[in-house]
């Protein structure tokens, strides 16, 4: 059974990415922010460093093995996905981040109908009563939960 090409390609690139991140962790982040101090038992950075080395070894091995197999199959190393595909995977993150940004200034309960309603419409729902209902019910539920059941006020 041959591992499929697409997965191998993913392995190579993700392995490379993890390798780079781990190097950055080991060289810069852990020594700098990992904490310092005299400990009788273990240095504060010991476990984090250990974890990073495990990642590094695994990632490097993964990259090499997948790279060799990919070469054997003689397939190109790089298949660039189209811009449309990337955008389609990307916009939901922007959408959620946008509302998180708004939630800094406004209570989530006010935003709730828009978070739900707008996404339902973006996903192709056109019946107005469905959109209204789907937007209203979670909002109402959140309001009841926070104000009447948990009694912590509007969040």
């Amino acid at each position, binding site marked *: 059974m041959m591992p499929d090409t697409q997965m191998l390609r993913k392995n190579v690139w993700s392995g490379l990415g993890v390798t780079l991140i781990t190097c950055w962790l080991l060289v810069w982040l852990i020594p700098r922010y990992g904490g*310092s*101090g*005299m*400990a*009788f038992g273990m240095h504060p950075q010991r476990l984090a460093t250990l974890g990073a080395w495990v990642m590094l070894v695994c990632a490097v091995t993964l990259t090499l093995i997948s790279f060799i197999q990919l070469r054997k199959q003689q397939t190109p190393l790089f298949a660039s996905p189209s811009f449309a595909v990337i955008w389609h995977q990307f916009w939901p993150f922007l959408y959620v981040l946008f509302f998180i940004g708004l939630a800094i200034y406004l209570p989530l309960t006010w935003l709730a109908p828009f978070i739900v309603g707008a996404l339902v419409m973006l996903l192709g729902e056109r019946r107005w009563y469905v959109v209204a209902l789907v937007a209203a019910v979670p909002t109402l539920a959140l309001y009841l939960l926070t104000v009447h059941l948990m*009694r*912590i*006020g509007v969040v």
Partner: protein
Amino acid sequence: MKKTLLSTAILSAALAVGMTTAQADDFPTKPLTLVVGFGAGGSTDIQARVLANVLEEELGQPVNVVNQPGAGGGVALTRLASNRDEGYTFAFGTSMTITYGPLATETAYQIDDFRYVAGVTLGQSAMVTGEDRPFGDTWEGLIEYARENPGTTYATQTALDRMIIEYIAQQEGLDLRIVPTSGGAGMAPLILSGDVDFAYSGGTHSGYAETGEMPVLLSLAEDRLVAFPDAPSMQEAGYDINPAEIRVVMVPKDTPDAHVERLAEALEAATQDERFIEITEERILMPVVYLSEEDVTQTLTEQTESYKALLEELGGVPGEDE
């Protein structure tokens, strides 16, 4: 018809808003929020909820309890410090977070970022041990034993008790092995099984008062503990520190005087309330008091100063090499 109703509603709402700003002595005119820096279900939380119930009657407005756990109460205080609610949001917590917290770690708040409306309960923390230890259950016995046996073990829970034990070790010339542990649930097994010789306890020992499985060696309150009158206080044992914990109610420092006074009034009444006294003295086993803003502020400031002096004597926060 509908339109007039609506405009009346808006008008009266606007009037109400105008009135609240005009007459501050009407405080409170809307629901209040009581922030607890610990999770739901713990002793601080339970006490806070009873307190909220009592305050609700005193203030005539709902008091909602919100839990903001994290960093030993530090997360709640960090958020409170930047709160501009003029007393509608206030926190209930323990004094250690304010006095020692900013010294032990870098915090976004300092002791003078808050006003301490009142102290309502005295903490009952202690140095405890287990049954049948070679040194018995007295503080002198322990000190003697620890002098002869380097490597006597101690379980610490907070940065503050760690500093205190380092100070004691320095004073008495002890060589202790100090083990970290998390909370009373982490400490109890170590003491009960005998893996550790003695330990700090915030309040867990109260639960074993009757069985005698967790004798108290030294009181870390200002006086002796209510449930363990045999153990000496820090002063009696010859250490010049007062690490007494006070459970206090606090508001951000720019809260108007009138609001603080109104809250203090309500809190004073709450400390007389049977329900609050029952939950605190009979269940949590801590004495209820009423300490005014002046008293609390003075005590906390003095404590902070004495901790600072202690730290200098010890040469920095224990554990950090600088």
